[in-house]
């Protein structure tokens, strides 16, 4: 054990408190830095949203063109029907077998039910639908629906969060410049005087 005088302990306390004081200042600055990052991310998000809107417009134009071509082509559905029907009858068993193999290997659940459902689906489908890539069109339309739904949800959530953040960051705490508190005085000294003479030091805390 070694003797340490009370004066030395007090000096250590003062020096240690200076260090802690700096850390408090760092934390306050950290809060502001995080706030700036949030604001920056939000700006980037807005810009991304603009890009999304443009991409959405392009995508929808292409989808509309696809649908138009599909509608026009449907008017010819009787043409080549015989050839297609014959090929379709041979295509169906292969398609069923390939799909069931894939399902059993990858999906690993309820193959029996899926098999019956698939057979029914193939019997009801038209080779013309197949010839026109109707499955790809349906898949695109389904994607479009899901994407619109996803964006709606995200926009809704982000809208709520943004308005709260805007209100939060308008507060003086986030806009005020904090004073330099590197010249530390023990806190007790401040308390012995009226607060009105030292308002800035109080804010720093």
């Amino acid at each position, binding site marked *: 054990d070694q003797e340490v005088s009370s004066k030395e302990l007090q000096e*250590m306390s003062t020096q240690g*408190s200076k260090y802690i004081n700096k850390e408090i200042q760092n934390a306050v600055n950290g809060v502001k830095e995080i706030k700036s990052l949030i604001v920056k991310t939000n700006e980037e998000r807005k810009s991304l949203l603009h890009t999304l809107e443009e991409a959405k417009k392009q995508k929808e134009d292409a989808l509309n063109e696809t649908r138009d*071509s*599909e509608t026009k082509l449907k008017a010819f559905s009787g043409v080549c029907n015989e050839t297609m029907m014959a090929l379709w009858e041979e*295509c169906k068993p292969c398609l069923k077998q390939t799909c069931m193999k*894939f399902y059993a290997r990858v999906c690993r659940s309820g193959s029996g039910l899926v098999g019956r459902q698939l057979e029914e*689906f193939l019997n009801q489908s038209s080779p013309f639908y197949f010839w026109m890539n109707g499955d790809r*069109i349906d898949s695109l339309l389904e994607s479009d629906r899901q994407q619109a739904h996803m964006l709606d949800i*995200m926009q809704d959530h982000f809208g*709520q969060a943004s308005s709260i953040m805007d209100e939060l960051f308008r507060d003086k705490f986030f806009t005020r410049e904090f004073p330099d508190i590197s010249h530390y005085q023990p806190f007790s000294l401040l308390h012995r005087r009226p607060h009105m003479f030292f308002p800035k030091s109080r804010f720093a805390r």
Partner: protein
Amino acid sequence: SLLPYAPFEPLNFQDMFQPFFDMIRQAQQAIDVNFHGPAFQHPPMDFIKEGDEDNRAVCREIRHNSTGCLKMKDQCEKCQEILSVDCSASSPSQAQLRQELNDSLRIAEKLTKKYNELLQSYQWKMLNTSALLEQLNEQFSWVSRLANLTQDEDHYYLQVITVTSRTSDSDAPSGATEVSVKLFDSDPITVSVPEEVSRNNPQFIETVAEKALQEYRKKNRE
């Protein structure tokens, strides 16, 4: 306003900062969408290779309405033949229409894929903001708690209570100095300073303060 109180009244930091916490928490809750929920399953776009995570999407599609099976048409010769049937002999304009359809389909698929990537970037931005809010909450809670604790009279932030060299029953390494401190409202915290940092070295008290602060923040998080 940060100063809703009379000038001579002590500031009540808890009341002052609590709305901030509430707002940060509300913002976080609003932003935390369940990205793994059914609304965020990525739509199947291409034929899927085995082992690809999108296999699950094809499985879902097959279970849902069997259309996923049509993606496997490339593996059946007769199905391929249907796709290459040329009906232009009986109706010449049909060939052109079909070409137009296939072209616009390819473009639509490409743009849908691009759109999907942008949506994912958007999701990422949301997750990023949520993580920043989490950081803000953590940093803010530490600052505001200290603000509340520095109001007591006659308190140093850090008070050194004892400084002791290592004793035989101590857990500290040989030659280390054990320092017991009080930080704000904490119970005494004991930290150990290595032998090579002597008491006369200014680094000594910084090491003590840093370790005590780490311990204090750790306890507060717990």
